[in-house]
């Protein structure tokens, strides 16, 4: 560009016109920040102690049947974890709002206090306990190895995973189990993608929760099966931000109540046909 051209454009930049644009954009953003409140159920709550009637916000995947998924007939979220959380909210006297969140941003959201707690089969681990506050467990399960029906690598259990390609969901604790077993881990956004790739032979095996395998795998058309015994007894519980321990204690009290009066057992039998809560 010639110096003449540059000079003209310098003048342009100094003009009011540009300032108008910057100002316009700034005010538009501020307006947007003030107005748009749709699709953000989690913002109004600052998770401290539970106040009667104040909305309880709960993070959940909504893509993990039978624990947390969308009922395609009603369009509502449902599942074992959802129903336990709903029962807890009912007894706290607070309305409940679920926030469907991908697993990879679930704990980050909890950390940023985007919701009060997580109801999503979160396994209690020492690492997570350092960062977060767990409730009493409401599920006890284990991990199983899943292979395709023809099982070309002849995998019979977790001991056979060494050197094999194992699929798991992003950020799940199954990834750690697979690594410990010496497997090469491939990450997927959801269990549906894992199982699809498994039956297409791109991965040798998958790891998942025994309860998931008990219920969902049977219902679906995936040409996959579980092999070996389940291993690594695991407890899952609601997860809270460390700052929300008072709320956690209230929830624990209610979990104790619904265990004693058989409500939890009822929800468990409804979804799994057996008591999975201890």
């Amino acid at each position, binding site marked *: 560009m010639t110096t003449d051209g540059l000079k003209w454009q310098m003048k*342009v*930049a100094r003009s009011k016109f540009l300032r108008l644009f910057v100002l316009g954009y700034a005010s538009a953003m501020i307006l*947007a920040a003030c107005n748009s409140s749709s699709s953000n159920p989690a913002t109004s709550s600052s998770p401290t102690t539970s106040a009667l009637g104040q909305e309880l916000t709960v993070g959940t995947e909504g*893509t*993990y049947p039978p624990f947390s*998924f969308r009922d395609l*007939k009603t369009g509502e979220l449902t599942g074992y974890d959802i129903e336990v959380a709903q029962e807890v909210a009912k007894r706290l006297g607070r309305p409940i709002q679920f926030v469907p969140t*991908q697993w990879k*941003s679930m704990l980050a959201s909890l950390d940023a206090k985007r919701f009060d707690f997580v109801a999503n089969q979160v396994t209690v681990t020492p690492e997570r306990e350092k960062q977060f506050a767990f409730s009493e467990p409401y599920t006890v399960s284990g991990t199983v190895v899943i292979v395709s029906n023809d099982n070309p690598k002849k995998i019979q259990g977790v001991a056979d995973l060494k050197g094999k390609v194992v699929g798991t969901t992003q950020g799940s604790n199954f990834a750690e189990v697979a690594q410990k077993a010496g497997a090469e881990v491939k990450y997927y956004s959801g269990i549906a993608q894992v199982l699809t790739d498994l039956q297409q032979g791109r991965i040798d095996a998958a790891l998942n929760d025994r309860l998931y395998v008990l219920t969902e795998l049977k219902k679906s058309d995936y040409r996959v099966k579980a092999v070996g015994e389940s291993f690594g007894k695991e407890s899952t519980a609601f997860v809270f931000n460390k700052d929300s321990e008072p709320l956690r204690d209230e929830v624990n009290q209610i979990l104790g109540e619904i265990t004693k009066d058989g409500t939890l057992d009822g929800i468990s039998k409804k979804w799994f046909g057996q008591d999975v809560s201890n």
Partner: protein
Amino acid sequence: MSVTNLLISSLPLLLKGALTTIWISLLGILFALIIGLAVAILRLSQKRIPGRIAEIYVSFFRGTPLLVQLFIIYFGFASIIRFTPFQASIIGLSLHFGSYISESFRGAILSISKGQWEAAFSLGLNPTHTFLLVILPQAWRRAIPSIWNSLIDVVKASSLTSVVTVEELTNIADQISSASAVVLPILLEAAAIYWALTSLLDIAQRYLERRYRYTDS
């Protein structure tokens, strides 16, 4: 449930997600265009400081993944400003694609010959009027095809906002395919909806190109 039934019964849910996708895309497009033009002018102004800031802005937002930017805006800023998922998505999309669009505008403005400026000045127009009435209309016409690439990208990239818990089309499709264990047909259904949405942008592009086409020789 047969796959056909599932595709039909899942349509209302998917369309609800599509509505969110449309809102995010429209607002993202609007702000990306505004940012793009403002940044292009800043960079062309040759003012040392604002020009440099604009350059760094383009370099960062064009040079890092939108996914990471969304995480930073939604989680990273949470302790300072708590954007709602919807706000964080619009800010992320408009800043990300504003950087591309600013380059489209800049290239188009630079492509207008110096003679146009000189002719306008000789007619007594001041620099602001010259830019608004003579240069920008010509540049806009040249910028349309490359800007539209970015606008279509905004619609598709809005699928990433599910990581900051927005329940848009892809997120809903994920939920349906997990609940039903039917993956590919549902994804194809979602893809068809995306295609329909971006086709509307195609139509708008054709209309604009016709409207602003050169009529002189």
